[in-house]
């Protein structure tokens, strides 16, 4: 399977890893940081080249692994995800929102939720002047999990996924193995 990570392409023998934050609460990123001392070992094998944790403006080329947190809720995210997919070898749906849509997809039960959600967020009965700002990206009719938009190589469910599970998956992949998820991952 293509999911095994190839570390040889990177300069310092460390895998080029990116993390991305779409429609989600950043809880998965928190859990990533929550690996405690294990992150030190991991850091020896990876180099985080893009994400909320580092200061990079553009998504770079030739990324080995991208952990994508959150679902695809608007047109901007749709473009971002497609771009990431092109530049990444192994794309991981990171957490329940990315895997299932989770909380962010609950609006899908309502027709016209793409409009109503924004109105609910920006308009209020108290302030009649309030309006949906026009720089907000257009919401998609439905919020989608990643695999409905692009090919996803690996899934780490959980809200958030436990730090141990994140560590396990990354460690296995870095060792060129395919993680066995039976009985390990947990939705919710």
């Amino acid at each position, binding site marked *: 399977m293509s999911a095994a990570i190839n570390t040889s392409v990177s300069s310092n023998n460390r895998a080029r890893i990116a993390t991305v934050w779409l429609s989600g609460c950043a809880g998965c990123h928190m859990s990533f940081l929550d690996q405690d001392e294990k992150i030190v070992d991991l850091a020896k094998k990876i180099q985080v080249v893009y994400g909320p944790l580092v200061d990079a403006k553009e998504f770079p080329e030739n990324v080995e692994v991208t952990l994508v947190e959150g679902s695809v809720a608007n047109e901007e995210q749709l473009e971002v995800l497609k771009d990431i997919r092109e530049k990444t070898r192994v794309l991981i*749906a990171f957490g329940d929102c990315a895997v*299932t*849509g*989770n909380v962010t*997809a609950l609006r899908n039960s309502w027709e016209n939720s793409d409009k109503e959600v924004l109105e609910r967020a920006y308009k209020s009965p108290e302030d009649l002047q309030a309006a949906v700002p026009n720089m907000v990206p257009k919401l998609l009719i439905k919020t989608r999990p990643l695999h409905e938009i692009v090919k996803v190589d690996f899934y780490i469910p959980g809200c958030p996924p436990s730090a141990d599970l994140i560590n396990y998956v990354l460690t296995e992949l870095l060792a060129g193995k395919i993680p*066995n998820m039976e009985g390990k991952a*947990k*939705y*919710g």
Partner: protein
Amino acid sequence: MAENFMITLKIDGVQISVPEGTTILKAAKDNGILIPTLCDLEGLTPYGGCRLCLVEVTGSPKLFTACTTPANPGMDVTTNSERLKNYRKIAVQMLMSERVHMCAVCVANDHCELQALANQLGVNHVAFERHFTREPIDSSHDFLVIDRNRCILCTRCVRVCDKIEGVHTLDLKKRSKNTEVIMDLDEAWGDSCSCTGCRKCAKVCPVGAIYIEGEAMSQTKNPDVAEFITARRNRK
């Protein structure tokens, strides 16, 4: 009744003996082999609806539901082939995609049999497009609540209400994917005259569809209640 008449069969290569009339599911369970199921519950009439307990029987091209098929002498049963595992994964995915199953925001999170099964089988995503139903939540009852968006139509509640409590408040309406659990003449639960408020439906619900307001799930869930009451009733 020849209830002590024992028969011998093979399950996953292990020779086991069980009393005649035992289902494959029970025979396996009593010998430490757990076959996944969502609709079956000891103490209730077997249903055969969820299709998770399908097993292979050597010599037949067909698959059999372990919960309804009696163990026969000399049977050679396989419960965990790659094909069956794959089918179970598909079944779980179909159930999860059919209605709104978002574990993180579900009252039954961590106490849900569907969630547990998905985890156990390694269903790490749902390949089918998810369906977002929008049935209103009925919380008209004093303390019982039903959220049909989480219902997997296992009918455990219907059967426990009929067979154990004996009032048959619950049943199903309509058919196909429009099937829903109803109270009396499709009334709001609070308006149901026949419901005794016995809570058994909430206790046996494998998911978060029926629950008790203000009560911790850990306290509510008790699927053994059906077996327990049946055993007490049969006490001489």
